């Protein structure tokens, strides 16, 4: 049972780490565990690609190509962040920002965090999906609060309060779905299972499902970072250690989005697609709009990246709302490409913050001269995240806009182009200022650490290559996942 190992490997790694005492041993186990988790995840997705959706005996686990897309990004970003962590943590110890017991806590929680996200992708029961998403919040809030600083505590507290209250509203939605499902299918543990819900949806009570989906949209929308419930996101993402920011922004939000999409599919079968799509488009476009002023006047580069994440989650939501074969495929590709580009940027920004000892945009200049590799990656990441051709995000954004025009949302698509163009200008203005210019005096040239440089190249490869060429298997995965959203695939 390969799919069981995907969940158990990170849990097991965390347990072993808990017993270890030496830092070097912890690092080895950390990397080995992360590598194993990645291998098992990719293997599972491969199996899904070849044999179709996998359901474990008893029906507790279920992986289809839709969760496969998210699982692949967890595998890649998780491993990259794990690699980066080692250098990052060593540097933090050197600087005296982290103590020994905090390192241990960091590594243990890192793997538990990965485990909860993998669980989100793999559970069949939609109630357990809620439990897993709430678990990701709690575990990652511990990680956000790892630094003993006022700002870190503030960010963690806001994160915990806003997301828990939001997600409590989502639980009300889940209860309503369950109530509706129980009424038509009878009382049993399985009636919340995805495999049952998405096939028997026509019997669900439309009146309940409307209310349920509004609750779920608000609740999971909070976790995805859709405006106006996004207030926790810039705080948490800017205060967490860089590798954690990369995972938070890169894949955690995708996990929440997966939950939203799953409930969206069930609801659109019961009450019609228009209702669900309008909600997605509405929240999406507001999120993109809200991000603009914050990116323009931003002074903190990690916060700037966080607001860019709000923007991208908005774009993905709009794409799901637009729908159609092209819209859905583009939404999924955008999810994956955003994971790659944004995690790369957060890791690079971690290197910059450790080198310059500041997160102020104004105090950073000449990265290209000080850290040539990080500088180049940071600049390429900037171009990629704003959707410049031939980088990967250009392809998916182009697809979304094409789908918008094709589906008759001309005004929406034009607005989207305008917003993306403004954000491109603002982000490039800030990032070019940081990358070029004179280096500060008394600044020695060189990267922070070998692993923190090497880890940047994994996402970089995806960002550069996938824009030009998407391999057959990748296309197949996105195609099949699109069919799941459409309601005809597995």
């Amino acid at each position: 049972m390969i799919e069981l190992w995907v969940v158990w490997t990170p849990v097991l790694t965390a347990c072993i780490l808990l017993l270890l005492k030496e830092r070097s041993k912890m690092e080895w186990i950390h990397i080995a565990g992360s590598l194993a988790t990645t291998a098992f995840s990719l293997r599972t997705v491969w199996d899904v690609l070849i044999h179709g959706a996998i359901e474990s005996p008893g029906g507790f686990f279920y992986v289809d190509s839709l969760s496969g897309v998210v699982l692949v990004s967890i595998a890649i970003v998780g491993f990259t962040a794990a690699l980066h962590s080692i250098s990052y943590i060593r540097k933090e110890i050197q600087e005296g920002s982290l103590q020994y017991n905090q390192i241990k806590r960091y590594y243990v929680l890192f793997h538990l965090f990965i485990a909860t996200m993998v669980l989100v992708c793999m559970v069949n029961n939609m109630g357990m999906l809620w439990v897993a998403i709430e678990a990701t919040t709690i575990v990652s809030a511990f990680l956000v609060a790892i630094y003993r600083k006022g700002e870190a505590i503030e960010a963690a507290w806001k994160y915990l309060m806003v997301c828990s209250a939001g997600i409590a509203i989502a639980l009300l939605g889940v209860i309503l779905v369950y109530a509706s499902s129980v009424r038509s299918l009878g009382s049993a543990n399985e009636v919340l299972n995805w495999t049952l819900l998405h096939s028997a949806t026509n019997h669900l009570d439309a009146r309940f499902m409307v209310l349920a989906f509004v609750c779920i949209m608000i609740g999971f929308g909070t976790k995805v970072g859709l405006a106006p419930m996004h207030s926790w996101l810039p705080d948490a993402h800017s205060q967490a250690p860089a590798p954690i920011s990369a995972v938070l922004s890169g894949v955690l939000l995708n996990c929440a989005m997966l939950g939203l999409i799953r409930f969206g599919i069930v609801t659109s079968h019961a009450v019609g697609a228009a209702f669900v799509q309008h909600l997605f488009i509405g929240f999406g476009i507001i999120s993109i709009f809200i991000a603009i002023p914050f990116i323009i006047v931003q002074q903190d580069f990690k916060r700037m990246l966080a607001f860019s994440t709000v923007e991208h989650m908005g774009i993905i939501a709009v794409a799901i709302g637009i729908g159609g074969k092209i819209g859905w495929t583009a939404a999924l590709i955008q999810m994956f490409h955003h994971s790659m580009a944004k995690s790369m940027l957060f890791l690079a920004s971690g290197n910059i913050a450790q080198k310059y000892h500041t997160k102020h945009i104004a105090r950073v200049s000449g990265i290209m001269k000080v850290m040539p590799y990080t500088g180049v990656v940071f600049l390429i990441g900037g171009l990629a995240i704003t959707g410049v051709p031939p980088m990967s995000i250009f392809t998916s954004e182009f697809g979304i806009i094409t789908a918008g025009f094709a589906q008759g949302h001309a005004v929406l698509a034009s607005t989207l182009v305008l917003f993306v163009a403004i954000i491109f200008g603002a982000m490039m203005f800030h990032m070019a200022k940081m990358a070029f210019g004179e280096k500060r005096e008394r600044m020695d040239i060189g990267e922070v650490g070998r692993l923190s440089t090497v880890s940047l190249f994994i996402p970089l490869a995806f960002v550069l290559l996938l824009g030009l060429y998407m391999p057959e298997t990748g296309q197949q995965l996105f195609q099949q996942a699109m069919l799941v959203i459409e309601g005809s695939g597995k």
Partner: protein
Amino acid sequence: MLISDMFDVLSFALMICSIAIVGCQRIVTAIRILALQSFILGGVAIATAYRTHVTELYGIAFLTILLKGIIIPWILHFTMRKIGLYRQTEKVFSREWSILISTALLIVGYSAIYRLGLNDTYIEKQYLPISIAILLIGLFVMMTHKKAVMQGIGLIVMENGLFLTALSMTYGMPSLVEIGVFFDVVVAVVLISTLTRRMEQMFQSTNTDQLRRLKG
């Protein structure tokens, strides 16, 4: 006593507890009332199990009393002991206004459920409006209280409201999900306790008005 009378008494007690938490002057009192509310919730679960013959509910009732009635209040009490027991609550609105607003939320609960037009079973009719009101009161506590622990208590009151919603609509969620939710709540409370103690160390205060540095 008839079982339906018993339900009336319990629902009345749940309402009073929620409003009492809103009006509390000392945080420790709020924790005690929270424990009492969770015990009553356990009682509702037992009464529902007795009436509907859903045996799983006995286990859920036991877990509710153990986790929400004993362990969570203990953790919160432990936190208060660390940071000083005699802390007053601080809220945006005065005590009188808070109580008035929370009774208004109760009316919102009733009118919202009335509009949904459900009156299938006795339990549902009795508890659904109250559960929605408890959910809203929990949210109200989170939004208007300034002390970190009280915001945490608001979160648990919200969870209690959700538990009651599930209980009255479908006689509880699937037991596996219910256990998962309990687990999440307990870990969240541990985190709330940790962060509160650290806030006290850092700012010599647990007033969340201190948390004003991150902007823009």
